[in-house]
């Protein structure tokens, strides 16, 4: 080109052509301006919504449920991660790739399904191996990351994390803990009633975060609190140790008397904390799904709060307290007991041993005299008596923090006063229905200077190091008897164990209050019960054992349930290290001087 002559400026340089070029550029720029105006301002709403839709991700975090521990920190329920290895053969291109995958993975698998290598060449997605522990999953994940991307397409095999609720104590806490369903939601027990504490959910409003084009979450957009970082635990009031020994004793007793169902409850009288809540037969919450449908209700139901029964004689101390409160009797009142009593209408009430005579109130309780109790209650005006029964909460719930608690049954005033026998049966504890937990609660009030507390199984939330986090409202308490009267009744109950029907619960060196109960039930053969309060002075624990349908002529509250309560209280003594209040009973004489070893000198 350099060889060409230098061009001279043309005379008629068409300047108008530059205007054409300029106009072209201006028109293009203006057109684009209009296009952007349409996109960004005029018609932007729809596209903006679409953009937001793909950028936002609605969080449905699969959070760990909090660990549940007992009062000493032993694990009752805990979440653990388990992994499954899934394969999606539709993403595998050819046999070569399938072979590569199986060659790479085979050495790392422990228990894969036997036909997994064939199924890789199939069509349907399947689980190669399940129940993988985190360490096994880590090894597999590392392998999947380092496999040659030229030889396989990642994504055709993946690890899926799942959470599994584990109950290391197995059957021990089943009645209280409940279990979780396939959606990891609580069913039954504390798992259900304390869902809000065990699995805190972030509110709907903060449930959104942003993701990028590969679907990965942007960590800085995740709202606080979505991923639970605290290691707080839900603490029960129950003690695994007491629970275990109570359960063992219950099982032995039930076996001996061939009983159909048994319950042992221990409550701290001062605050309503349940230390033990054992129900037999029970189930293993780890494998709740393996029980037959027909069996489930019988096994899963927490009978202590769902099953109503007529308490019989164990209700007598409550009646005595009412009579004392109403001024119908005094502690030194003497009542003549005929031994048998015809109530009319074919109802004849007789005492257990048919004995009678002039009895003090204490003796009536000690001997569990039915006739004596009728005389006591008949000293009360029916309306006053009925008001008292209502006031102490019969026909109501205790308000325990477990789902499914049944309301007791208190007849209407009209029903109760229909005939002499209707009132009289309530005097010795029949004709009213309540749950074992409510009977325990009422006795707890007698032991707690007349103050009724709300039984509960959850202490609250604790940190990893065991410090309390205040989350629960204090439970309500209510004075139902005066302290003086409650103590008077307690003294009468001590004599039950010392020399009355509850002798089998007696523990040498210690004093406890108690009351036996054996009651025929409308639909069951017999329910025996024993309530024990320990220690007799300044009581701390109230224990109730209820055994349903024990076999044998000798099956009574004093024989079936009292020894059970005794063994539970013995465990409490060991647990708390309670010194005997009557040392002389266990240490008969001072220890003898130890014998000197014989002298070895020749």
């Amino acid at each position, binding site marked *: *080109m350099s060889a060409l002559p230098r061009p001279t*400026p*043309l005379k008629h340089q068409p300047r108008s*052509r530059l205007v054409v070029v300029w106009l072209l*550029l201006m028109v293009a720029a203006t057109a684009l301006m209009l296009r952007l105006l349409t996109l960004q301002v005029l018609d932007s709403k729809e596209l903006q919504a679409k953009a937001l839709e793909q950028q936002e991700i609605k969080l449905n975090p699969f959070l760990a449920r909090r660990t549940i521990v007992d009062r000493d920190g032993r694990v009752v329920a805990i979440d653990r991660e388990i992994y499954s290895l899934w394969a999606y053969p539709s993403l595998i291109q050819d046999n070569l790739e399938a072979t590569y995958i199986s060659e790479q993975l085979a050495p790392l698998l422990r228990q894969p399904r036997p036909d997994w290598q064939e199924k890789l060449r199939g069509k349907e997605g399947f689980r190669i191996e399940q129940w993988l522990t985190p360490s096994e999953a880590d090894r597999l994940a590392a392998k999947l990351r380092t496999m040659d991307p030229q030889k396989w397409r990642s994504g055709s095999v993946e690890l899926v994390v799942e959470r599994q609720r584990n109950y290391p104590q197995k059957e021990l806490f089943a009645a209280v803990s409940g279990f979780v369903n396939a959606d990891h939601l609580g069913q039954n027990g504390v798992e259900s009633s304390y869902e809000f504490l065990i699995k805190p959910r972030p509110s709907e409003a903060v449930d959104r975060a942003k993701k990028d*084009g590969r679907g990965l979450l942007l960590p800085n957009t995740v709202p606080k609190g979505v991923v639970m970082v605290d290691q707080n635990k839900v603490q029960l009031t129950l003690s695994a140790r007491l629970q275990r020994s109570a359960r063992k004793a219950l099982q032995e007793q039930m076996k001996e008397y061939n009983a159909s169902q048994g319950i042992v409850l221990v409550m701290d009288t001062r605050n309503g904390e349940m230390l033990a809540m054992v129900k037999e037969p029970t189930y293993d919450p780890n494998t709740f799904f393996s029980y037959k449908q027909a069996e489930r209700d019988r096994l899963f139901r927490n009978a202590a709060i769902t099953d109503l029964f007529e308490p019989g004689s164990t209700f007598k101390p409550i009646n005595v307290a009412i009579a004392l409160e109403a001024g119908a009797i005094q502690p030194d009142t003497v009542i003549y007991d005929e031994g048998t009593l015809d109530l009319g209408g074919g109802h004849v009430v007789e005492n257990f041993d048919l004995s009678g005579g002039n009895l003090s109130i204490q003796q009536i309780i000690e001997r569990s005299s039915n006739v004596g109790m009728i005389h006591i209650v008949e000293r009360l005006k029916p309306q006053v008596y009925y008001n008292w029964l209502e006031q102490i909460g019969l026909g109501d719930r205790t308000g325990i923090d477990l789902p499914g608690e049944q309301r007791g049954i208190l007849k209407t005033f009209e029903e109760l006063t229909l005939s002499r026998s209707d009132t009289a049966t309530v005097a010795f504890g029949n004709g009213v229905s309540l749950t074992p937990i409510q009977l325990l609660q009422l006795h707890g009030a007698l032991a707690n200077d007349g103050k009724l507390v709300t039984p509960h199984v959850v202490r609250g939330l604790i940190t990893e190091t065991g410090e309390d986090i205040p989350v629960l409202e204090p439970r309500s308490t209510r004075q139902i008897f005066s302290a003086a009267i409650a103590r008077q009744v307690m003294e009468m109950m001590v004599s039950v164990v010392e020399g009355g029907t509850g002798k089998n619960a007696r523990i040498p060196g210690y004093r406890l209050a108690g009351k036996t109960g054996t009651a025929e039930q409308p639909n069951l053969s017999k329910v025996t019960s024993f309530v024990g309060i320990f220690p007799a002075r300044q009581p701390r624990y109230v224990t109730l054992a209820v055994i349903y349908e024990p076999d044998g002529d000798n099956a009574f509250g004093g024989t079936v349930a009292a020894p059970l309560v005794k063994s539970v209280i013995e465990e409490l003594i060991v647990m708390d290290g309670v010194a005997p209040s009557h040392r002389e009973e266990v240490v008969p004489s001072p220890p003898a001087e130890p014998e000197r070893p014989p002298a070895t000198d020749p």
Partner: protein
Amino acid sequence: MRLLQVLPFFDQTVDRWVPAARVLRWLLFLWMFAGLFTLFSASHHPAATEAATPAYYFFKLQLLWVGLGLVLFNALVHLPLKVMMRSAPIGIFVLLGLLLAIEFIPGLGATRNESRRWLTLGGVLVQPSELIKPFLILQGAQFFTQWPALSWKQRSLWLGIFAIVILAVYLQPSLSVAALCGMMLWLLALAAGRTWGQLLTVAAAAIAAALVAIRPYQVERLMMFVDPWQDPQGSGYQLIQSLLAIASGGGWGTGYGLSGQKLFLPEGHTDFIFAIFAEEFGFVGCGLVLLFLMVLSSLCLWQANQCRDLTLRLTIVGTTVILVGQSLLNIGVVAGGIPTTGVPFPFLSYGGSAMLSNMFVAGLLVRCFREMGTAEVVPLRPATAARTTRERRRRLSSGQVP
């Protein structure tokens, strides 16, 4: 200090330049640094994820290319256009050779993004189709200036060479760059005063040839822009993401660095960087960019109109069309107004070859503005104009270069 003079900021001759050249220089710098600013935000995510490099990798590399480009820019500003003109045919032949070599010698070219061919030179990916653009401007300007003095043999020889260059670029395949080069040459012919008959014949022939040579996947791409929602996960994905980004910007934009779509948009740091800009700065930002392009092109074409040397004038037209025209083409693609073809936004998109090529073009443009004073040799002018000319001459005699 003398060493630093290779960079334009330390160029001490600038105060002696004609005002228009100085204004142009600052407009171009504004563009370059706005580009770096935009890339900083747009390149972060692709660098960290797709390329699996440190987050500032692309930005740092681009800084390196801008640095090299500015040295080239400054060198060109001080190099007489005549020298450049002489180098144009050499440049064209060398780069055409490279283009044909990577097309027909297997193993020489590297495939990127399924359709772009690159040449690996000492570990650096070079894109001959980008680098050939400035030489085409120079040669086109020279050729159409000399057109009346050339024989039909010479004319058809060069027209043939131009056609081969465009075809070779098209075979890359780089449809958009081919189209851009073709349009640029056609506009040079237009500005040079070729008859409408010739112009329309060539345009018709080019369109006919394009229709014959078009490839099936390009047809799909070309038709897709009309309704990208037909295949939202496939061929329409990128354009949809781009439209969503632009619309998300709204009137005022999401703010610098706060684009949500840059996490979705493929090639958000290269060909589709304008969509990220549009999201972060809204219609206000986009309007300012278009206004800037309009002002810049008006300034250039006004200066071209003042210019009496046809070669200079055509070079200005060519450089303006390449810089502004390519920008408009890019915005058109990103906004779904024209078929989706891979064309980078000058000075904004990440890429070394494109940066060097654009710096080359920018340097040429500034050089043309500076040479206008010397090229103006018409004596018969009104007194004021004459005085201006005298003053310029005086200034010229004190310094060496205008």
